[in-house]
């Protein structure tokens, strides 16, 4: 089928012209109606948060930067490097390379541990599937959302970064807030 420009022209249907007085109301009346809300709120004072000095608190279930966990008693890593999180991840941003524990080098509780555990935060969509897939609750989504960085490669989080003590930069919303 050949393309004829006339077929793609859309005719705009305009409403009826309101005329002189109606026109004036449309120009000013509606504006004033909007401004009523503005001035009404003015008395409440500013609500802008002075980010980064001040931060938006998040709900406890907010899905932010991941964390890997250790057992509190033994200090061993909970992650056994099973790669199930990597299988579940829709963005394919987790890379796990497992290795075998030895008595001299016991990293996790099972036979197997994650020698490499990387999450590419530039690709993560924070869906939380990894957390759900993990059979050992080894990975959870934290609350931190401040993930900007200067280079992409810095956004590949390694196991050490994920295991490190949680960053407590993000305030949680208080009950009822």
């Amino acid at each position, binding site marked *: 089928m050949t393309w004829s420009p006339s077929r793609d022209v859309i005719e705009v249907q305009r409403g009826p012209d309101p005329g002189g007085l109606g026109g004036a109301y449309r120009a000013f009346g509606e504006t004033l109606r909007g401004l009523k809300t503005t001035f009404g709120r003015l008395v409440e004072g500013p609500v802008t948060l002075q980010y980064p000095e001040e931060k938006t608190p998040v709900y406890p279930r907010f899905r932010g930067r991941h964390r890997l966990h250790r057992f509190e008693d033994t200090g061993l890593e909970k992650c*056994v*490097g*099973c*790669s*199930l999180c*990597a*299988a579940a991840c829709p963005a394919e941003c987790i*890379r*796990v*390379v*497992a*290795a*075998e524990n030895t008595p001299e080098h016991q990293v996790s509780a*099972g*036979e*197997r541990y994650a020698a490499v555990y990387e999450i590419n935060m530039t690709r993560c969509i924070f869906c939380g599937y990894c957390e759900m897939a993990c*059979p*050992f609750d080894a990975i959870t989504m934290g609350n931190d959302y401040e993930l900007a960085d200067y280079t992409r490669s810095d956004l590949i989080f390694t196991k050490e970064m994920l295991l490190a003590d949680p960053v407590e930069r993000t305030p949680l919303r208080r009950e009822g807030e």
Partner: protein
Amino acid sequence: MTSPSQRFVTFEIDGREVTAPEGAMLVDAAKYGDVEIPVFCYEPKLGQPVGACRMCLVEIEGMPKLQTACSTAVKDGMVVVTTSDKVKSAQNAVVEFLLVNHPLDCPVCDKGGECPLQDISFGWGAGRSRFIEPKRHFRKPIELSPLVAIDRERCILCYRCVRFSQEIAEDYQLVFLERGDHTYVGTHDGHPYVGPFSGNITELCPVGALTSTTYRFRARPWDIENAGTVCTLCPSQCNVELTTRDDNRVLRVMARDNTDVDDGWLCDKGRYGFQLFHSPDRITQPLVRDAGELRPVSWERAMDEAVRGLDRAGERAAALVGGGATNEEGFLVQFLMRSVLGSPHVDSRPGAALDREHALALSRPDLSAAVADLDSASAVLVIGAELVDEAPILDLRVRKAGRRLGVPLVVATSRPSSLDPNAAAVVRYAPGAEEALLGALAAELSGGGESHPRQGRAGRASLHEAAEQLGMRRPSGDSERARLAGAREEELRTAAEALRGERPVVIWSERLTHGERGNEAVAALLALARALALNTGDGGGMIGIPRGANGRGLREVGCAPNMGPGLGAVDQEGLPATALPAALGRSIEALLLFQADPLRTHPDRSAWERAVDDAGFVLAFSDFRNETVERSADVVLPAEAYAEKEGTVTHPDGRLQRLRQAVGRPDGVRAQTEVLLELVSRLSGTRFEAPPAQLTHLVMDAVPFYRGLTLDRIGGRGLRWQETDAAGRLPQAPLPDRELARPPEPPEGLRLGTGPSLWASVETDHAASLRFLAPRQEAQLSPEDAERLGVAPGDEVEVAVNGTGVRARAALRSNVPAGSVFLIEGTREDNANALTDGGPRTVEVRKA
């Protein structure tokens, strides 16, 4: 080969009419109707079903109890139900039962994601267990061998590994120990399970109980990709699948079942040898000798030097092509030599040249058997070959033919063979006396005993009677030949008896043609072929096992001093590898070693040492700094591993198979075909360029009987050229009908026999997991000789010829015939080739 024509039966499964081959087990027959019946222990590769796991229970109308579908053959009109409540509850119960002692620790288990137990529990299990008692515990994981780890808690006692060891590899090492719920898998004597095929059990185990130490925890199925190619570490050329991950390394090698080639098994060299691809010692940069030292240089510099060296030598250059080279590479090397440098000297065999007439006769399609023909052979003769060392997968195939299909086996070797216990007849002869032995066997077959079924019973019988009346029971000369072969006449007679039949298949080692009298040996082999009437019928034939993995292909594309591509005649015959040492440094100046290491693999080591020292220029394509390279190479170009190659190879039975690149080459390694093309271009002044597919096309065109074969036709399963129309283009060669020459008198004294070992190889040296298998030189002696020489088992001895000695550990074997001593070829140290020179040798053995 004709197999009995298949009949089909119709039966009903889950209310559907299905047609399936007669005699098929219900499990397989159900697949024709798209019904899946879960199985654990059923594995057709392992032979008869055992019905051990009960996972496959189905209801069959007219039978009061549920039946195992894996061991019930389908019958016409059978009515089978797989979905009834009765079957469902049985399946649930079996899964629950199997999981009673199973830890279900899938996240740490290496099988997770590719585990039949996971799949079946999910698909057919009830999803719950009533078992709350403690499960059984074992120490885990432990080494079943350095290559295989075993986790006994996960074992579901399906028998597969044990059956493999007992019925396929026939090493009888794995057994079930204890009884009842104490049963566990182990070796009968508690020693590690080490054998040439042990790795296969990791692929067979349906759970994570047996895992290979080299792959454990390296990746999950969703992390990997599998690339199909062909293993070129030995002439069996098994079809393999290489598992790779994101780091561009091969992580494991798995079998890619091809019943025409490997039956789905791999040897451990093939399975674990992949580690050599990523060895830190691998050469990944061109090297040039500079003030006596090999130093890394740029490709430009190395190529300049290579071109200069070859150009200077011109027609005074020679090339040796190693067995791992593809047809394309071999073709290019011989093209470089013959058409560009004008030198006729190119060889790929470590021995003397094969007469062209003989090569043509041996290649005749009617004389050549396919691997699958072994299954329907009337008898199999293995001659001069220790298959487990030379082509391990054929060893399994021969065992299968004997055990499962009842094919009688005749073993004729000088060294005691591991196939002896399976053989209907064994013939022992003196090392190096193949010619006499073959002649004697041929004479025995065409002379005495029963007449050959195809040679007119009546005529033969009357001849026989006449002979008897004349008082000559057997044609004279037989016993003389037997004496020259050092073989016993009764043994020859039983062997001949076993071989009379419609379709015998002869597996012979090309090693018997490598000696000085190699061509006489081939003549005798062809006489044997005639005596067996291999050339007249539809069945039977021969399979020659070359020394190199692609020995057959290399010969057919022209890497022979007296034959061009397609076994064609050449204007000028070159020097075979055996004559090169004498010529190097005199009439030959430059040597091109294409993945060849003559100091390790060629006989007459001292001559080669002198020769490579005298050579003016040595250019080597090599993946490691082997001795030849270290000692003599002036320019070294890094070689590719087979996982990095594109091209074709030819199986000993004539099957062309395709290599496909599975991983990228390490930085600094270039495709060898590309490098060869560059050498051709620069030396000839004409630009040659061809991408791999085009190069294959070129080769297929250059070899008349490959013509018309394309990569597409070869495909993933390969194609025997004998089965294509092009086979008719093989120049006709009659079977010689000459009187066989008289074999020479055997030398007096202790005779030396040498043979390759599966583990005396580069792979063993450089693959970390295999290193423990590297053999030490061992002198196998008969107890009589040992007593005479005052040698006790385990003694350090020196085996010497004319003052040259090789140190070895003495091993006494009762089945070694007195008067012979055997050494291993190709060991890293104390290589037996220091003593060999292609002729029969007598040695002295003394305590060191």
